[in-house]
């Protein structure tokens, strides 16, 4: 499955410089297009890297392969602007897909498969269902909260 950003970049390039059927059969031209797509995606996501490096990279000149957890990383995930905006349902992103899920069972499956690459246990699926049926909470907000809790969980950090 192509990633959302990749699809968008491809569509934009196709609009700017359409390729005819002959060009699409030309391996060289297709390879060239794939490179262009990659460049566009990279440029678009560059900003995110800038946000993460000072928080998750070790000091300059220090070994970069050791795990460490600091309070500023947790603060970023708790309150950081980029994380909050990624939680907003939009198109085919995680919460976008979850909002469209036809029932709670499929929503729980999608949530666990997407974030933790496994299906929820019966207990976990029940937790998700209970969360969604909570009082004074609308479905979209509940979905955003669930997605956040999953992404900040120790399992997401350590099993991937």
């Amino acid at each position: 499955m192509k990633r959302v950003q990749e699809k968008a970049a491809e569509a934009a390039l196709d609009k700017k410089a359409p390729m005819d059927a002959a060009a699409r059969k030309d391996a060289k031209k297709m390879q060239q297009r794939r490179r262009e797509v990659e460049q566009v995606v990279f440029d678009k996501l560059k900003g995110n890297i800038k946000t993460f490096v000072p928080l998750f990279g070790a000091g300059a000149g220090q070994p970069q392969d050791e795990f460490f957890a600091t309070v500023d990383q947790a603060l970023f995930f708790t309150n950081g602007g980029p994380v909050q905006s990624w939680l907003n349902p939009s198109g085919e992103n995680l919460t976008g897909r979850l909002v469209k899920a036809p029932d709670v069972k499929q929503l729980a499956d999608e949530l666990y498969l997407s974030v933790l690459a496994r299906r929820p246990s019966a207990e976990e699926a029940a937790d998700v269902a209970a969360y969604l049926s909570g009082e004074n909470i609308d479905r979209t907000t509940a979905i955003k909260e669930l997605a956040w809790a999953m992404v900040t969980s120790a399992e997401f950090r350590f099993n991937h």
Partner: protein
Amino acid sequence: MKCDYACNSAEHNIARRNFLGQCATGAGVLGLGFLTRPAVAEQLAKQQKKILVINMAGGLSQLESWDPKPGTDTGGPFRAIPSSIPGVHVSELLPHTAQQLHHLGLVRSVNTKENDHGKGAYFMTTGRRRTPAADYPKLGAVTAKALAKAGESLPGHIHVAAGGGGGRSNDAAYLGPKFASITVGGGKPPQYSTPPKGLTDASELRRQQMRQKMNQRFALKRRTAETDAYVQNYEQARNLVRQRDVFDTSKESAQDHERYGKHDFGQQCLLARRLLEHGVPYVQVTHSNYDTHNENFIFHLEQVAEFDRPFATLVADIVDRGMLDSTLIVVLSEFGRTPKINNRYGRDHWGTAWSVLVGGAGIQRGAVIGKTNDNGTQVTDREVDGGHLFHTYLQAVGVDPTGTFDIGGRELPLADPSTESIQEILA
């Protein structure tokens, strides 16, 4: 080496006898009234011990500060003025601090034999010489761990700097990132400590509870020091968000802003006071930069003057608020500066004979330890180095520097076991 999750009890590192000894001395000085007022004793016992370090980055000249040698070939143009310790003079660049000196003390016989910025700073902040063989935690990390109280929510190791966050150092070494420094500045709370617009308290609470529930489930299957560190950081972050006003100097009165000065260093000292009042065990303010290879005297005239008033104000406030007995105050550098004045009117790196200011907590008030010769080229009495000072700092806040931390089952000494405290300066 990994940080062990079961090792956060610090009680055994607090020198209980030392503390009781201090209480006894206090009772002696204050008379029996002290003992008949248990509430006061209790309050004193409860007061969190803490360390304030002012780091004069680049290398403060001892001759333009704590150990002036006016009228000699090395003395430079500035005069010496009497301080509030009888018979002790400091540079005329420190008129305000001179009046507070009787609360503090001086060590005028530091010889670290180290003329490199990095190595000098390492020796002064870890109490050990830097070697490629091992990395040791900095004073702030050791203090934060040794003085950490169960349930304490604010980070224990805070650096105050002009720019605030950014960059990362491994200053906690094997003590783990929990005790690594966080940097705050500009009178603002740490980055990302303000909840985003549109996130309600109820929503935040719900998602945090869900996160905790998932983590508890995960911990049943897999629990390591690393997963605990990760999970704890979120709790620490929540507490920090709740208490973010602690970092907000705009809560201080206009009068205080005026007294400390509106320049960076003044504001940083004001923030330091706020943090110390809230019981943060280690606060370090950096004043930069004293690396005056050129025009040493003009630079010190400016820099030391900028340091003098806010620092003296901070000391006076610590005394006024009854915090001096619980607060160790240290003014250090990576080294001093050469007595010889070079041909650019500068002074160069000099680890051979220089001074460190240390006072408050368990340090004798008004103690001056060690001497240099007449033109400051050599230590002539009670030579000490970064290791002695490191031991002394810890002992002054009631932590036994000969004690150990249990790190993943290994007993690791808090301070270099081959050296010891400067006993004469301890009360």
